[in-house]
């Protein structure tokens, strides 16, 4: 008897809770989302993107009433996961992915990928991670100028590590080469952590890396410059931007992280996703955890993102066009 009563109570309670959740989500389309949402992360678990995506989506039950489940689909520098999103996932709004701009846009320009900015829809952005130029603790270089001067005298002998081909780090390297008129040897690695290890261990002379990762390992690396429009007052107030150091390098290599989905998802659902995600990323706890991890935040909605994607695409087309076509081919094939 007692048990039955308890059961009824529980059902009632569950009903109230569900009702409350629906009310919180505050949307007319109470039927979406009604299932957990899969978030494809195109990198292996433990990397910066994965780690941040897990924190950023951790409050999704509060804001969507459904959990967001991280599914790692690593491979080919992110291509596997993003191809999967546009090829194999359905357009009902339950399959979304974490993106890295400029990386995925650059890939869609340089490789034969199934995705490009036209068949993907931005949802919301949570973080910005500018590329910083780092050298080992014992390196003779103390400023960007030191490194550039050395590279002028020894063309092609300065090795620079980064998280892979055509990621922000690579773009920053190309920008520095163009701007300073030097030749660097870019070494793509399996990810930011590996690239950082190469700098720490002295296997390469310098590296471009994520501000967040470099910030955490300042005891072993010197941070020479930041490839952004302004200094990072919060984490690295003493590190100059490239512009301040006399190199006209803008924020094109800044790594934006956020959520996107494939095109075909209805506008209504996109709106629910985008608005919910913006609120979720603005959640105090989420912000605090991400900041504690050393990743600067910048929350952006759909409209702002669409514009940003377009801008990046235009800039990258120009940048790659300025490269020697032979050199490009070499980059895409030889490595």
């Amino acid at each position, binding site marked *: 008897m007692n048990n039955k009563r308890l059961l009824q109570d529980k059902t009632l309670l569950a009903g109230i809770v569900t009702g409350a959740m629906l009310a919180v989500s505050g949307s007319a389309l109470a039927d979406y989302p009604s299932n957990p949402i899969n978030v494809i992360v195109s990198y292996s678990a*433990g990397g910066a993107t994965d780690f941040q995506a897990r924190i950023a989506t951790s409050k999704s039950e509060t804001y969507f009433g459904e959990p967001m489940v991280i599914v790692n689909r690593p491979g080919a520098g992110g291509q596997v996961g993003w191809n999967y999103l546009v*090829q194999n996932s359905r357009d009902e709004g339950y399959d979304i992915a974490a993106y890295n701009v400029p990386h995925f846009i650059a890939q869609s320009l340089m490789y034969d990928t199934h995705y490009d900015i036209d068949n993907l829809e931005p949802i919301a952005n949570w973080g910005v991670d500018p590329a910083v130029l780092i050298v080992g603790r014992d390196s003779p270089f103390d400023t960007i100028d030191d490194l550039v001067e050395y590279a002028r005298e020894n063309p092609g002998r300065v090795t620079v590590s980064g998280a892979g081909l055509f990621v922000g780090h690579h773009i920053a390297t190309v920008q520095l080469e163009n701007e300073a008129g030097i030749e660097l040897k870019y070494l793509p690695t399996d990810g930011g952590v590996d690239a950082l*290890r190469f700098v720490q261990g002295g*296997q390469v002379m310098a590296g471009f890396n994520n501000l967040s990762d470099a910030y*955490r390992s300042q005891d072993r690396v010197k941070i020479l410059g930041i490839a952004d429009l302004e200094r990072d007052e919060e984490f690295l107030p003493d590190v100059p931007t490239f512009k301040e150091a006399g190199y006209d390098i803008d924020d094109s290599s800044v790594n934006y992280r956020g959520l996107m989905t494939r095109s075909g998802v209805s506008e209504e659902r996109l709106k629910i996703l985008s608005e919910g995600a913006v609120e979720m990323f603005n959640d105090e706890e989420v912000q605090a955890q991400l900041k504690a991890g050393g990743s600067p935040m910048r929350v952006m909605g759909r409209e702002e993102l669409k514009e940003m994607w377009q801008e990046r695409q235009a800039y990258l087309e120009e940048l790659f066009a300025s490269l020697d076509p032979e050199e490009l081919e070499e980059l895409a094939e030889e490595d």
Partner: protein
Amino acid sequence: MELFQYLPEVLSGWNLVILIVGTVVGLLLGATPGLSPTMAVALLIPFTFQMDTSSGLILLGVIYTATVAGGAVTAILVNIPGSPANIATMLDGHPMAKSGRATEALHYCFISSGIGGVIGVLVLIFFTPLLADFALGFGPSELFWIAILGITVIGSLGGTTVLKGLLAGAVGIWISLIGFNPVAGTERFMFTDHLQGGVTIIPALIGLFAIPQVFQMVEDARRGRGGKTFGMEHRPLWASIVYNLSRVRALGIGSVVGVLVGLIPGAGGQIAGLIAYDQNKKFSRNPEAYGKGEPDGVIASETSNSSMVGASLVPMLSLGIPGSPTAAVLLGGLLIQGLFPGPDLFTQHASVAWTFMGALLVSQVLMMVFGLYISRFSRYVIQIPKQHMAAAVAILAVFGTYSVQNSTSDVIIMMTMGCAMYFAMRFGFGPGPVVLGIILGPIAETNLLQGQMLGQAMDGTFQYFFTGGVNLLLIFLCVLSIGYSVAAEFKVRARQRRQSTGRTVEVES
């Protein structure tokens, strides 16, 4: 010592419950083919978000520890390794079980795991700052040679001859090339979209080991041999402990190899067990006994893969660079709990760091105790009729494969490889070398390509790979290892020839 300050918290009330439940669950998860330690930790990380810091850290530590050891149970009893780390355990553990020494094998497995695990954690606690620099010294050239050294292990991995082992290893390396090139992103050997993501280790492991075993069980059941093939003997625990402790060489080689492999980021902690097994066999006075149920094989392999656990956290906690795939996943969970790797780990984040290490240490001991306890129940596992067992393993194989990346392609890959392996085994090829090729192929390739690029910018590729103390030492070890395998093969052949005089000499290559 600060550790003792935090140990009471680890062992208090709720945390103790987490430790015990975590150990048991971890052992069971580890014993499930397909649920590798990496998977288990990744699955549990979201749960730790809701816990307070120390409980979360304890859960992560204990699961990591217990899953690595749990994989040995199925390796010994069913001949299917729970994770790549347990392949070497299987080589002698299962023959031991078949000859009626299953309890003994399980005893050695958990005692050695406990000893190795404690050594690994002690290394982590006392030598972290010292060893961090050592770990950083390994660049592309050194990692390339380590991968090559790993490949030379193939000679002692079962299969009927060294040549067949090498052939199977080459096939494994070829399989690892399928998909996108890791450095340049170009497509290779991709005939269907199913192969887009390449062949990853878990589908391969399950396919190569579990599926042929399923077929074998079905076959046995149809021929009326469906009952149990071996029993669990009664063996006093103290006898196992005494013998286990007397095997100083196996324990020593196991822990040294485990610690070294764990320390080096990018070497892939999964091969620790195999290298320790191989080294121990080569130092052994009767290498012929290996693969037929030699306790030292189990001891060396389990000591090694458990001591790898603590050591793989050294570069992670001090530099933020994980030493094994599981450590990489763990890193995310630790960051969220406020454990930021770096030099101020023991000063600014002391409470978190020490709680975590305390939990690791305690969980090593608990894992040993509960492992030994659970092994008493293993008799029920082997009493399951073959046809039921085959069905259960098949279901777990599909489930485990699918769950890694929610990918049907992986299931297809797993089944295909499994069927191919079943027939290949009829011709004397073993699954071990293939898996080793799949694990080591990408390590060797990526580092070769990166080393080549670095070499071009420096004094040339040849100088880059063939100069420097560590490189030369590793090359020397490779030559030694190959030389030994060749010599051993000739010895065996010479003996065969002597035995077969009078008969027609079989041409066996």
